[in-house]
Each structure stands twice: as C-alpha cells, then as structure tokens.
C-alpha cells in the first residue's frame, strides 16, 4: 500500500520592530542577559501592557501580502501555562479573533498553500543551563519581542513543498521588512504538523507535531524522517500516537516530548488589560499603499522594464539588499544590464569573500554608477575597472577622482595609440612577418606590446583595430 503524507506548518517570526510588543524595551538580539527588560516585560506585579501600533501594522502588511482577510475588530487572549521563561505565566496571544484569516501563498509549480490564520503574540525569554554551576538561568531579553504566528492549512504533500513554502514566505517577509527571518537566531521558527494516510483515503491520519528544526535543510530531513517513521508504524500494524516530537539534527532523528494525554490546558480567555484592536478601511488602505514591492513583482519588472534575463532577475532579488542596490545603481546609470553584471559578478563575490552579508554593505550606488559610466564610456578598461571597484568596495573612494589621481584613465587619443602601434610593429619585425605568414598568435603579442607601451591604459578594442589595420597595410584614407 502506498501512503501519502499531509502536513501543515506553524511558522513563528519575530518582528523587527524597534521596541517590544507591550513596552518600550528594544528588541535587539544578543544583548547581555536581562539588559533589555523593564517591569512590564518581566511581568512585575501591577504592570500593564500597552500595544505597539507598529506590530499591528506589520501584521496587516503580512496579511495583505498573503491575501488574507483582515479582522476589523481583533482581540488578544491569554494563554496560561507555567514555565520560568514566561514571567507572567501567561502569554498574550490571539485565539478567538486573530488579526488575519483565510489567506494563500503560491509556492510555484501551480501549487497554492492556504493560510489558515496569522496572529500576534509575545515571545518568551530564554533558559540557559549552566553545566558548571548545575543551575538554570533565565534571560528575559527576548520576553515581549513581537511574534507573528503564521498557520498554514494542511496542504503540504512533500518535503519539497514545505521548503518551497518556507523559502517563499521568508522572501516575502524580508521584502515586507517585517522580520529578518534568521533561523539561526530564532527569529524564524517552524513547527510541523504531520500525518500519513493510505493513498486515496479522505480521512486524515493521526498527526504529530515536530519542533526544534534550525534550518530549512533540517526541516526537510525532519519531514522525510517523520513521514517514514509514521509509515513504518502503520505498516507494522501499529498506531501513530498524537504527540509532540523534538527533532535532533545531530542524530537525524526525532524523539517524543509529550503525548496528547499530557497536553496542557492553556485556559485561554480574553486579555482584560488590552482594548480590542480596531482596524478601519483607511488604515488597511494606507498599509496597502505603502506596501513595499515584493520580489515576485520586482522580477517581473526587471524582465519587462530592464530587459534582464530571468536568471539575472532571480539573482538580484535573492536578497532585498541586492535588489535595492541594483535599482538605485541602475536608476543612476541608466544601464541596468551593466549594473546587474557588476553586482552579480564582482560585488557578490567580494561580499562573500569578505564574509559580509548583503544587508551589511554600505556601498554608495552613486559611486557604482560613476564607475559603470567610466567603464561603459571607454574611459577605463575592465581590468582597471575591477581595481577601482575594489577601492570603492573597501575604501569608499570616489571612482572619478581616484582614476584621475592614479592616472588610470585610458589613453583616448587615437594618434597616440597609433604611434604606439607603429612603434611596436617597427620593434618586432619578426612578429609582423610571422603574422603575415599566417601565425595568428603573433597578433596577440603585438597587441600586448602596444598595451604595455601605453601602460595598460588604452582601450583594447581600439588597439586591436589599429594593429589589424597597420598589419593590413596603410589604412584607407
């Protein structure tokens, strides 16, 4: 019998707002423990939450990008459970009236994944076990960092679809500017609900929930492993237990954490300390108007307006920083293909080689545009161009001033070049003879000699043409 897997995803993303969801503390990752905290986010007695408006705005933005219905009168609810990283012993979340519902995301290949809902909630702190002291410490810095939980419908049928969805979702969230989606830092986390059923059966099988995957690769492996495990259980005549499982990437296997019988009762009820969230049409329209252009739309535009091939459009939109750099540079030069080439070859390579991330770059598009102008205008050759780019990349020099100061401008005067060609021919009669005798190699040598005489600063096309003319005899007047 063949089995089909059915999976749904719960993706948590930390929003990149400046401050936390219910207080003014910063959301920065990696501060000294318990330095980004206040009485509100540590749940001190008597403190009250005040909703960060930007969180709502980011949620609406995300909802619109995922084609969701926006809840006009939303509410927050309390999810009650005890854990030392949760200082109030309840998480303010949304159960009954989440902010976005009924959306969809196309993941390519004609497949669309339904979005069940998106809700806003607060993150918990972090427990750090100290093996030396044999104690557990709590860091509340992450407490109250705003989260969106994006819950998909059970529409996935393969690990490939799961990864495609996550990549697409990540790209959208990055382009919306609502999250930095770094799985390693935990700002994007995905839990998988997965079950298998005999092919053709309408009824869903018993599902498990898988947690603790730290990369898309791990997610794909976890999906495959769990699918296999469940099928094996069924084939052996067993039953899948409804439980929460923890993925161990090192062991390439998952382990049961808790079963349904031990599932917590979260005793949800409406959060009395917050007013309902009213979102009117004007607000939604404003968010829609101010919505950043998504990668999909950029690719379409790059192809249509700039005539870039699909490959270039993909490369340039692979990170929002590349797209931004490309667009700003292209706009300044009016030569989109040249801008695309410069970024896709040298700049991407230098960025990778220096261990930088695209968003870390501080490259000035105006300087890149000036450099492209120098190359395309024939004022410097490509070899010099690379050198100048390095200077721009690492030292932020002004390309025009730099080539002038360094004397790198091409010798643009054809008479000077012609004189150098004649001298090269005169100094190397043997090569001239060889060429005329049919040795094409000699031509390259003569071009090289000319270029050397000109200190490498001549347009190679021009030298080529003049050498050929000189060898062919007197150019026609």
């Amino acid at each position, binding site marked *: 019998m063949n089995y089909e897997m059915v999976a749904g995803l719960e993706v948590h993303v930390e929003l990149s707002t400046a401050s936390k969801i219910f207080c003014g503390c910063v959301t920065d990752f990696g501060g000294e423990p318990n330095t980004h905290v206040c009485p509100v986010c540590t*749940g001190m007695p*008597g403190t009250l939450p005040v909703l960060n408006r930007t969180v709502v705005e980011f949620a609406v933005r995300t909802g619109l990008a995922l084609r969701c219905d926006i809840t006009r009168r939303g509410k927050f609810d309390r999810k009650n459970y005890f854990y*030392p990283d949760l*200082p*109030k012993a309840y998480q303010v979340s949304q159960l009954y009236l989440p902010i976005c519902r009924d959306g969809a995301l196309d993941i390519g290949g004609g497949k669309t994944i339904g979005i069940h809902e998106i809700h806003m909630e607060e993150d918990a702190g972090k427990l750090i076990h100290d093996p030396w002291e044999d104690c557990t410490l709590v860091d509340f810095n992450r407490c109250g960092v705003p989260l969106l939980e994006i819950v998909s419908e059970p529409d996935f049928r393969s690990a490939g679809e799961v990864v495609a969805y996550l990549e697409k979702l990540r790209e959208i969230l990055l382009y919306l500017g609502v999250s930095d989606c770094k799985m390693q830092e935990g700002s994007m986390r995905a839990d998988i609900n997965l079950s298998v059923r005999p092919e053709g059966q309408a009824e869903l099988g018993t599902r498990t929930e898988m947690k603790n995957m730290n990369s898309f690769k791990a997610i794909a492996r976890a999906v495959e492993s769990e699918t296999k495990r469940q099928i094996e259980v069924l084939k052996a005549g067993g039953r899948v237990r409804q439980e929460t499982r923890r993925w161990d990437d090192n062991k390439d296997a998952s382990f049961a954490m808790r079963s349904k019988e031990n599932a917590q009762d979260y*005793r949800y009820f409406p959060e009395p300390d917050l007013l309902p969230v009213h979102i009117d049409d004007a607000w939604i329209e404003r968010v829609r108007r101010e919505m950043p252009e998504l990668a999909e739309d950029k690719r379409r535009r790059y192809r249509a307006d700039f005539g870039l091939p699909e490959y270039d459009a993909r490369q340039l939109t692979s990170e929002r920083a590349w797209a931004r750099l490309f667009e700003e540079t292209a706009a300044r030069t009016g030569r989109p293909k040249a801008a695309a080439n410069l970024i896709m070859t040298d700049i991407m390579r230098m960025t990778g080689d220096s261990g930088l991330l695209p968003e870390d770059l501080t490259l000035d598009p105006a300087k890149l545009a000036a450099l492209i102008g120098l190359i395309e205008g024939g004022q410097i050759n490509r070899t010099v161009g690379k050198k100048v780019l390095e200077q721009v990349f690492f030292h932020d020099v002004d390309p025009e001033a730099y080539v002038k100061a360094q004397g790198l401008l091409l010798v643009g005067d054809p008479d000077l070049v012609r004189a150098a060609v004649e001298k090269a021919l005169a100094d190397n009669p043997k090569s001239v003879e060889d060429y005329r005798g049919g040795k094409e190699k000699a031509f390259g040598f003569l071009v090289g000699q000319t270029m050397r005489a000109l200190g490498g600063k001549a347009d190679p096309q021009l030298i080529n043409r003049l050498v050929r003319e000189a060898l062919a005899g007197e150019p026609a007047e």
Partner: protein
Amino acid sequence: MDLRDHTALEVGRMVRERRIGCEELARHALRAIAETEPALNACVTVLEAEALAAARAVQARLDAGEALSPLAGVPMVIKDNICTAGIPTTCGSKMLESFRPPYNATVYERLLAAGAVLVAKTNLDEFAMGGSTETSRFGPTRNPWDTARVPGGSSGGSAASVAAGQAFYALGSDTGGSIRQPCAFCGVSGVKPTYGAVSRYGLIAYASSLDQIGTIGRDILDCAAALRLIEGRDERDSTSVARPPEAEAPAGVRGLRIGVPANYFGEGLDPAVAAPVRAAAQTFAAMGAELVDVALPLVEYAIPAYYVVACAEASSNLSRYDGVKYGFAGAGAESLEELYLRTRSEGFGMEVKRRIMLGAFVLSAGYFDAYYKKAMQARELIQRDFGRVFTQCDMILSPNAPTTAYKIGENIDDPLKMYLGDIYTVSVNLAGLPGVTIPCGFAGGLPVGLQLIGRAFDEATLFRAAAAFQAETNFHKERPNRPSVPCGREAATKNKDLGCGLQVQPTVEEARA
C-alpha cells in the same frame, strides 16, 4: 475640637494658609497611628522617616511658591496592593511579604506630584480577596467602632485608618465592593470610580476587568478632591480614559431622579440596615429629589457572574507568583514542579487558593462555555439592565451591605455567606459604573452606609447628591470612641505644651477678633 475632626480639604487649606506645617501634620498622623495601631492593626507598614522627609519636601515646594494641590501636605495612607517604589507592597500576602516594587503606581506618582504625604501602607484581605480584612498575612484589622468586629474589606485598613483619624484620606481598590463596603462598616465616605477613570498601572491585579482604584475620606468632598488628583488617562494603562468634560450643574438634589430598586431591600437585608437607608431616601426626597421605583431583576445573577469572572482573571493574574523571580519561594524544592507547588501552596492563604482553583476550573477545557462564557453573558445583561434603568433615573440608591460590621471570625469559615455580603456592590463593578458610599445612620451603635450608583463617568452627579446629603445630615461627623490626642487646634492655641509639637496659627478672622 480635635484636628482629626477636620476634613482633608480643611487641613489642606490650613497648610496653604501656613497655619500649620506639613511636618507637624505628619507627626500628628504618626502619633495618631502609634496610639491607635495596637488596637486596630490598620497598617502594614508605617513610614515614619519617609513621611517626615516627604512632609519637609512638600513644605519646601510650597514655600518655594509651588501651587501643588488642595491636599498638599495632608497625611494620607495607601492600600498595600498599590505599588510604591522602594516601599514594601505586600498585598497582605506571605507571597509578597518581601516585595519592594522598583516603580510607582501611576496614582502614587500623581499624588507625589500633588504634594501628598504618605504615612502608611494599609492592611487588606490577601490580594484584595475578601470582605473583612481577616485574610491578611499580617492579621485582621479591627473596626474602630468596635474592635471585636471587622472593618469590612478588602480595603479595611484604609477605611479603618481614616475612621480612626490616622490619616485624612486614603486610597483603596474596589473589585466587587472593596472600597464601598468597608466605608459603610467604618462610617466613612468612599468612591469606586467608573472603570477606566483611574489608571490601574501599579495596582497589583486581582481581577483586571473589575479592579478600580478609588478614594476614601471623612466626607464625600474629600473623596472627590482626592479622586481629582489621581484620575485621568494614563498611557501605561490601555483601559484608562480621560474624563469627559462635565456639564455645569447646580448644587443640591432638586429635580434629580433617584431610582430605588425594590428588590435591593428584600430578603437577606438586615432590617436594622434597611431602616436608615430608607430614611435616607426620604431625606433626599425632602431635599427635592424625586424617588423613582426601578427594577434591577438581574441582581441575583451578579454574585455568581462576579465570582466566575473575578476568579478566572485572578487565577491568571496570580500565576506569576511562582518563586522564580521575586517574593516568596518555597524552600527545598528538588524540581521545577516542586518549586511551583511549594511556593504556591505555602505562599498563598486559603481564600486566595480557593479563588485560584475556582478560576482555573471555570476556564478549563470543557467548562469554559458553561461558566466563564455564561458569566460574561450575564455581565452584559446586567450592564444593559443598568442602561435601561438610567433612562428612568439619574442615579440609584441602595443599601451597601446586607449587615453592619460582623464579629471577627464570625463568617471566616463560611465563604458563601461572605460572598453574599457583596450582593449590592458587585454588579456595579460588572457594569463598570461609579458608586459612592456615605454614612446614613447607625444600627446597634455601628455605622450604616448607603450606596449611590451613577452613569459611567458621571461621578459629578453622585458627588453632588452625596455632598447635599452630608450638608443636611451629621452621620459622617460621628466618630468612634478613641483616646484623645491633645493635638487639636483648640489644644494648640490653649496649651503650649503639646508633646507633639503641633502649632496651629489662628485664622485671619480669629486673629482680628
């Protein structure tokens, strides 16, 4: 005349007119506390050094020409569930016995700006859960009128303190009657403002959708003046709102329609309490108000709805006391679960545990719809009931509590009976309306209070009616027996050797005479 017979506003005026110094006043209050505390136990923490320092600072600001407020320099007390930075805020619980908040409640910030002088934090039922101030970790507070009796609760410490002349006014909190009922039991005046009128930031939550901070004074004008200092929108409390502008209204009650709900005077109400409340209604009528029969039939659902909603919220609000971050932590725990169990079993008293369990139960899977959801529906119907009645009248007059103050220990083992003591007050919290309590007579030598319930944010009309009543009657001027403290103004002018160093200068008129 004893200084303690003056109202807070009168004393505030003496301060502004430089007839009495802030420090002397603080010393007077501290002395009154020292004399009455052994019998009353109204205070959890007496702030001797802090009060004197605060008094000197307020005096300096006044002397520097700052206007401050009508109550600047007047000694006052705050219920011990309202956070005061660096000053213990215990909630009357072992759980928070050692807790010193690093921040002030908004109300205290506002009081400090207005020149208030805090002399003590007052006793309460543990986490404000109770109606008798018997469940406090620090022992019961006693009623100044009869120390064998309870002062009511949960703001029993604040009410007893004002009644006994320790402080001129007080802050309390009211979730189901916790300001109004102790005011009635102790013969003082109090107001539970409209939900949202006063910031709850820094009020240690019992039931968030019902809790409201209010004021307690010797007369209603003191309550109104103190409320003015603390009310208004606070950015730290999303549920707080700015008071809408009030229409100018003439003094007195002429033309006011006062609704009297017949079923509030039915079974369960002690006839000795009913009599003065009915008489008070007649006094209002005699002063020109129109008495209207109104029906509030849903009151019988108020108690169950209240205890479901309040306990549900409490079970969540009190979950944070887990022994991990602050306050009491159970000793000797071998595991996390054991730490939770020990901390919460040993740190909370019986009544708090009862309400947490009740609340966790009504929110749990399978029971939520039957209890919490039903209670919220009842709550909405009760709100509508009030809305309908307020088309027929401008305010409602009712008893405050079914009985006068009962004996300490009398009801402590009968929670249901205790809960029924809130019958006249809880629906006001469920509907988020303002209510005031004023003394209206005595039964068996114990004070009886009446309750006036108003439209949302219409405290002004309640104050107007209560002030007119107090201008007409003297119940609020009656004082419990107490040892005399020779610190009054008369004593000051007649007797140079006061012991407490209090000097009250004669008024301009007196000096002229």
